């Protein structure tokens, strides 16, 4: 977490292999991807990492179900309808499978995006301000869902946010300032996060 312009998103993009780093090295699930080729990165996106962004980035022409199935189909697998429905049900959208993104609310679209990211059972889920575009109720339900994925199935999630309330739901919070890691907190409260943030803003 950190103030805007602190390099949160850039850091996330580098960690996820979307951006190349000029120095240092990047490892995901024990795999060095610093100089990975495009083919390797594509394979990585299919198996080891999932993405969720502030904008939902769903493919408009496809239904919720088809959007979720897309990563598996791109990987050459034929996902069964049940498998896809299960993932959608796990984000509470079992009854919205045939809707197009345009027909869903913001919170529902974001949950479809999470389902799409989770369908490949990635080692890491990268989330960039996943609740940034949502009202507080939807935000809370999305956040609760992410938390339960960690607690129930041990899913690793790397999330970027500038909202102390969101950050406080994490096990560990790292603070960025002007592109550098400057601080960390384990299992913090909202107040602790807000205070730390305020200190670095001064």
């Amino acid at each position, binding site marked *: 977490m950190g103030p805007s312009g602190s390099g949160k998103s850039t850091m996330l993009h580098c960690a996820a292999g979307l951006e190349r780093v000029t120095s240092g090295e990047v490892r995901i699930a024990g795999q060095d991807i610093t100089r990975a080729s495009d083919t390797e990165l594509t394979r990585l996106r*299919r198996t080891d990492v999932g993405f969720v962004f502030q904008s939902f980035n769903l493919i408009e022409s496809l239904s919720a179900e088809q959007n979720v199935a897309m990563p598996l189909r791109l990987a050459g697998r034929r996902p069964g309808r049940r498998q896809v429905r299960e993932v959608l049900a796990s984000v509470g959208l079992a009854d919205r499978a045939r809707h197009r993104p345009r027909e869903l609310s913001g919170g529902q679209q974001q949950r479809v995006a999470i389902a799409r990211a989770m369908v490949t059972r990635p080692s890491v889920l990268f989330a960039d301000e996943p609740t940034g575009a949502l009202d507080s109720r939807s935000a809370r339900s999305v956040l609760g869902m992410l938390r339960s994925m960690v607690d129930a199935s041990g899913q690793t999630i790397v999330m970027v946010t500038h909202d102390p309330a969101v950050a406080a739901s994490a096990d560990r919070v790292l603070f960025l300032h002007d592109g550098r890691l400057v601080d960390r907190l384990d299992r913090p409260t909202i107040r602790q996060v807000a205070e730390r943030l305020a200190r670095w803003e001064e």
Partner: protein
Amino acid sequence: MLGMSLRTFRDRWPVFAGAVVTVCLGVALVQSSLLNLVSAATARIPPGLPAAEALALRSGYEAGISLLGISLGLSTFVAIFIVGTTFAFTVAQRRRDLALLRLTGASRGQVRRLLVGEALLLGTVGCLLGILLGLPTMRVQAGMLVHFGFVPTGFGPQWRSWIIAVSAGTGIGIAVLGVLVASRRASRVRPLEALRESDRIARVMTASRWILGMLFLAGGIAMVILIAALGGEAALALSVFVSMMLVVAFTALAPLVVRLASWPLGILARGPLGGLAHANLRHGVRRSASTAAPVMLLVAFVAGTAGTLDTLGKATRQEVTRTLRADLIVTTDRPVRGQLAAVDGVATVSEEVPVTFEVGSDDGEGHLEYGVVDGLAVDPVAYASTHDVGPGNLTALRGDSVAVSPSYAPELRLRVGDPLPVRLDGRTRDLRIAVLLPDTLAGPYFLLPPDLMPDSGPRRYAVRLFEGVDVSSVAARLARVGEVVTVDEWIDRNADDQQHTNLDVMTVLLGMAMLYAVIAMVNAVVIAASDRRREYATARVTGLTRGQVVASALGEASAVVATGLLLGGLAAAGTVLGIAVAVEKMVGIAVVSPQWSLLAALTAGAFVVVGVTNVLTTLATTRTPAIRLIGTWE
């Protein structure tokens, strides 16, 4: 991936409908030209026809065939150009979609397969429609050819079943090729671009655009130089290639020029609207270049061809004025040489009888191939005193001989003394080349000796009077024998005829292809507007009224049209310049015929077509209340 193709197809239909239309029209046009060409080439001369009539019929078909050949080449080029640019444009329009796919794990190969799958689908649909549309198109084209007299009456194009394979092959082939080129670049789209729309404007001028543009520009310039060096009939055919090469070069380099053209707009356009139009023009260079392409095509070919034909016409007229040394021209349907010569005041009478015969040339395999040509049978002495025939001594034109201008076929390098195989009055024989005539645009290319002059039939006489004789009184006396005109009137009349023929040639050659280009113009505007819903919505929530959005879009479109006009004008100028240099080299007459009124008409037409389409599509794109589009991200 085909399922995916089908679904995107359903969703982005304006873009794909545009692509299907271009394939359909392209296939129809090429198929129609090809069927007409094949039908003309295989047209049977009915047996038992008198030799002279059969020859006239063959001559008519041969003229039609060469026109149809150019027409086919032009149609094919225009179809490849328009389908290729349209498909490349549709791919570029979907950059964000493709980046999104990459983000969810699509490999480069998968993106390419998706695009090629789409092209196959669109190509197939377009081809099926095109093959059907090709039937009425063929009849219309044949009707035009007969109507303007480029093929003999009674010409009817025939359907051939193999054309289905050709049309399907070309249509689908062009669509897939167009996409293959574009997909190479599209598949390299980085997943991150789905998140950052700004990356999209980066580097429109790619290395391949530079290379392609420079290569074709160099090719075009080399062709102009080649035309100037070659001269002759070959040069005239080459000029079409100059237009083609320059069109391709300017299309590749268009993004550069759009940026240049946005300059005056930035200075001219005042206020926030002008500023927005200017910014959008520079932002959407790729889009602007794609809309400018068909405008450029239209102007390059119409102005280029009109300029070429008119330059040739003017040069021909000047050449005749310079070489003809007679006072009156008499035309009759029978020989009247003696009667004319007996009239008071007449100094010289040159009898000139048109003869249609065939000239054989080696087909490369040791066989002679005969082509129909027109010549004049003349009396050498009288002809030489009424026409400038250059340094050659025409008195050698006796017996089985012929005088030839090298302009007929510069590549044969004909020399005095060479035999020229001909078929005359149904008899095959060799004529000895007695004299080489100077290069000529106006013709005749062949002069035959009096021994080969037909004893009856229509002919004309160039009459020279004694110095100081009253021309009109002699003309009145000659009028009892045949139709008399002064040389000036005769030249005027020929020039008028030529102009009519030129207009007919333009209509037959370019009519359909240019209609196609106009539809492509509309198409490009519609496709370009298809991904601007959000952009317009953003502009509206920023505080612009719907009318202001339309006005700003119109301003942007006008600048794009201006770019197309400018580039097309340049390509046309290059072509006409090439011809002018060739003509100067051939007959020493320097004329250039810039088509100002035609250019003005094209300018007005392009502005109206693009302007109206643009206003309509912008209105349609802004119909949904802005806030509904801004609210959801997708």
